[in-house]
């Protein structure tokens, strides 16, 4: 044996290791180099093999108990070691001692506490099983044939105990035991159990208390359910040993059994050889398939008996004598070896392979038989046994589901609470758009006027009109006005409508317009504006009256440059040719040389830039602004502070200006009806919306107060 495989994690360990180097769980080695987990765990996987469902424990356990206890084909049958004999001897001594010392069951607090339901959850499985009232081990004559079916999870299996007096349901049985006993209203089956117990007590002088509960050295195989009432004939060697020709066996425990017996006592099967049971290795499928019925071995014909049973006996008989008679290697019984869980994770061949393996890499390359490194990991096959099914109660399951739901709810993104709109917004918007466009188109098409052009004029409009009149009156030479076309194409309609009349007046009086723009579209819009304003104007001379200096790049910086030196800021026309050679620009050194500045803008920021950068350099020359209605409120303070001498704002300002100038039919008047209708529509929308929402809020508050 070169190494020991940990049954818990599969890590290979040194042969003399007491515990796993990886998981630090105790290693209980066997002679063949394989391990079995400590007793309680043994019983766990045994219990699992019997069936995960604990609803039918007694049938299964009793069956297993019988099978296990009666396994004839174990290695012990051939060679019972001396440690086994020692166990038996000690058991006898202890039993005799117990007969004198052990009080009645009711007087033993330890056992009562162990059997109490509260403590049950803290006990290892093997102890739980041990504390359950064990039926007296039936005599071979009383035992039913093995053909009884073991009922695992509602299925049947051979019991070997004859007609079991216990109900099929373990839980019910447990409760029944704990609940009915005090009241004294025990069911029939319990009465029968008590009677059998009494008989066992009578026979043995004590209850069928597992020995290990009393701290005795010899464990009772709780897995098989062997109770103390089952006396083992220690005097005579078991038949299987005799058949194997083994006479010399010691009762001394080997080291591994010394370590393992207090915990599990899994060697109890050695104490109960029973040839009436077949080798459990032949019935290993019982645990897996859970639904195989076995006829009792005794009833089977010899050729029908499990092959392995007979074969094991033959093998044992033909086995070579032991090399070391002092240390008798303990061996698992065939049935236990066959179903041991380690097989599923650590194949037996691994050990041999690892022994002969030569390390191929790392600092130990070339050495043979060393502890393998990464190799074993890759050798482990996938678990052939499905994962153990967790035993959970219904309450635990509910809690687990609750926790799962909580976690899944946490992982879900929060759903935004969508506020319910008064009406589908898209639909409402669509209808609003259709209604507005329809109304405006109707007003434009029909030419209906809702009211006359404004008869009240704001002071800024009046001031603007007066200044334009002054420009128009300047003659010889005519007024040279710097015109800033600084509006975007978006509001070209409004701006052109507002600017048309003042420009036309200036052009009609021979005024000269020098256009610049800080907006890229400005030069083109300026050209279009002048062309529109001068339509049908007989005295207009484009080349002599209008110069387009084009686009000033850089916003405020270019305006500062323009204020300082216009000829440097705008040296060329839009065509690229030099501008300042033109007669129109002769004598212009600074912006103060212009007669005035007319700014047309739709943006308060642009207006602010012109006022900040250029207006201080105008040296008192008037600055007029034609603005869009949207920027007028911000520009108005500049008029109030006298930095701007006049302002015309939007279509209403244009209408007022045309009224002042006594212009008849114009573009403004044609749009005025639609404009007023549109304003009315918006006012109606605001008031209607306010009314609806006000009433809703009123009702909401009222209902909330009532509630």
């Amino acid at each position, binding site marked *: 044996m070169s190494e020991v495989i940990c049954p818990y994690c599969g890590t290979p360990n040194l042969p003399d290791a007491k515990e796993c180097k990886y998981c630090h769980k105790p290693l209980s080695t066997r002679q063949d180099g394989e391990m079995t987990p400590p007793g309680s765990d043994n019983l766990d996987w045994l219990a699992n093999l019997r069936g995960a469902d604990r609803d039918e424990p007694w049938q299964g356990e009793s069956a297993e108990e019988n099978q296990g206890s009666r396994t004839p084909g174990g290695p012990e049958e051939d060679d019972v070691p001396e440690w086994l004999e020692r166990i038996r001897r000690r058991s006898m001594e202890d039993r005799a001692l117990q007969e004198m010392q052990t009080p009645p069951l009711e007087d033993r607090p330890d056992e009562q506490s162990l059997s109490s339901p509260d403590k049950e959850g803290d006990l290892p499985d093997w102890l739980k099983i041990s504390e359950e009232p064990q039926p007296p081990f039936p005599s071979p004559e009383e035992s039913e044939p093995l053909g009884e079916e073991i009922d695992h999870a509602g299925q049947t299996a051979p019991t070997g105990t004859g007609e079991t007096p216990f109900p099929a349901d373990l839980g019910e049985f447990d409760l029944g035991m704990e609940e009915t006993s005090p009241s004294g209203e025990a069911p029939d089956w319990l009465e029968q159990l008590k009677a059998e117990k009494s008989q066992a007590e009578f026979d043995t002088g004590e209850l069928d208390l597992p020995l290990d509960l009393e701290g005795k050295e010899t464990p009772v195989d709780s897995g098989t359910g062997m109770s103390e009432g089952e006396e083992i004939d220690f005097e005579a060697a078991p038949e299987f040993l005799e058949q194997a020709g083994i006479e010399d066996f010691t009762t001394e425990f080997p080291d591994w059994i010394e370590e393992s017996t207090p915990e599990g006592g899994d060697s109890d099967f050695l104490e109960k050889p029973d040839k009436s049971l077949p080798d459990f290795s032949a019935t290993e499928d019982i645990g897996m398939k859970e639904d195989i019925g076995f006829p009792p071995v005794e009833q089977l014909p010899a050729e029908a008996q499990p092959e392995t049973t007979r074969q094991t006996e033959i093998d044992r008989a033909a086995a070579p004598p032991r090399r070391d008679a002092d240390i008798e290697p303990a061996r698992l019984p065939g049935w236990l070896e066959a179903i041991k869980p380690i097989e599923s994770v650590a194949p037996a061949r691994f050990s041999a392979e690892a022994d002969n393996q030569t390390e191929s890499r790392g600092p130990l390359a070339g050495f043979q038989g060393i502890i393998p490194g990464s190799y074993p990991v890759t050798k482990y096959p996938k678990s052939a046994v499905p994962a153990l099914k967790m035993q959970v109660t219904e309450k635990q399951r509910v809690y687990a589901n609750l926790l799962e739901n909580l976690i899944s709810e946490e992982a879900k993104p929060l759903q935004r609470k969508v506020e319910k709109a008064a009406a589908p917004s898209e639909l409402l918007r669509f209808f609003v758009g259709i209604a507005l466009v329809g109304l405006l188109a109707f007003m434009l098409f029909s030419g209906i006027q809702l009211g006359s052009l404004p008869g009240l004029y704001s002071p800024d409009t009046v001031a603007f009109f007066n200044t334009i009149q002054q420009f128009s009156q300047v003659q010889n030479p005519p007024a040279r006005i710097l015109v800033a076309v600084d509006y975007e194409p978006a509001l070209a309609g409004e701006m052109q409508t507002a600017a048309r009349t003042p420009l036309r007046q200036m052009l009609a009086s021979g005024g000269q317009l020098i256009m610049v723009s800080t907006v890229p579209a400005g030069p083109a819009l300026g050209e279009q504006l002048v062309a529109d304003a001068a339509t049908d104007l007989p005295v207009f001379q484009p080349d002599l009256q209008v110069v387009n200096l084009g686009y000033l790049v850089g916003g405020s910086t270019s305006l500062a440059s323009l204020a*300082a030196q216009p000829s440097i800021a705008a040296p060329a026309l*839009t065509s690229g040719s030099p501008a300042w050679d033109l007669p129109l620009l002769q004598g212009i050194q600074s912006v103060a040389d212009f007669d005035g500045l007319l700014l047309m803008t739709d943006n308060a920021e642009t207006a602010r830039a012109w006022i900040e950068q250029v207006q201080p350099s105008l040296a008192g020359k008037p600055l007029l602004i034609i603005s869009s209605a949207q920027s007028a409120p*911000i520009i108005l303070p500049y008029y109030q502070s006298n930095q701007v001498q006049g302002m015309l704002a939007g279509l209403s300002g244009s209408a007022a200006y045309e009224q002042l100038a006594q212009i008849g039919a114009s573009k403004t008047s044609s749009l005025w009806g639609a404009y007023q209708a549109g304003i009315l529509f918006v006012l109606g929308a605001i008031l209607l919306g306010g009314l609806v929402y006000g009433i809703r809020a009123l009702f909401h508050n009222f209902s909330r107060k009532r509630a």
Partner: protein
Amino acid sequence: MRAPLSTAIAIAAGIVVLLGYFLPVPELKMIRSMLIDWAVIVAGIAGLIAIIHLVKVHIKKLSSEQNRDYYSLITLIAFFFTLAAGLLLSPSDQRFQQVVTSIQVPVEASLMGVLAISLTYASIRLFQRRKGWMPIIFAVSAVVFLILASGFLSIADQVPLVKTLMSALNMLPVAGARGILLGIALGSLTTGLRILLAADRPYSG
């Protein structure tokens, strides 16, 4: 200090230009004028580079394997066509200026028209879910100035009270607007001073 050369250039240029505003020194004014003119040229080139970058982005979007934007093709064709036409015809050509009057104006003006529809729709919900007095004052102010802009009050132009009322109402926004303008000016002043004192260096990115 990060980017010391850039910071020095920004501070030096800024201080010279600023001094030129207030000190009546002809040489200083000349230098200031020259620096501003240089800045205008650099700003123009920066604008051109921004346009090149825009074209680059649209070429990238068009050649992207995953999210190919076929609309970018329209942009690129329009750009190169306009550029070629402008270089051939010059910006002063009436045919080239149709680019503005027949393409830019309809598109932008129509967008403003769509804005009118959206604002009208928004007007319906002007009073919805508004708490406090300020929104109410805002809405009332909007209604009052819409009435003033509509010109309907001009019907009563012979009534002296209406004229006085309109004058008073027209002056009301001036107070708030002046406060806003002063706030903007102070903000500009602070921001500019921070740049000239190198507390802010937006050019070092």
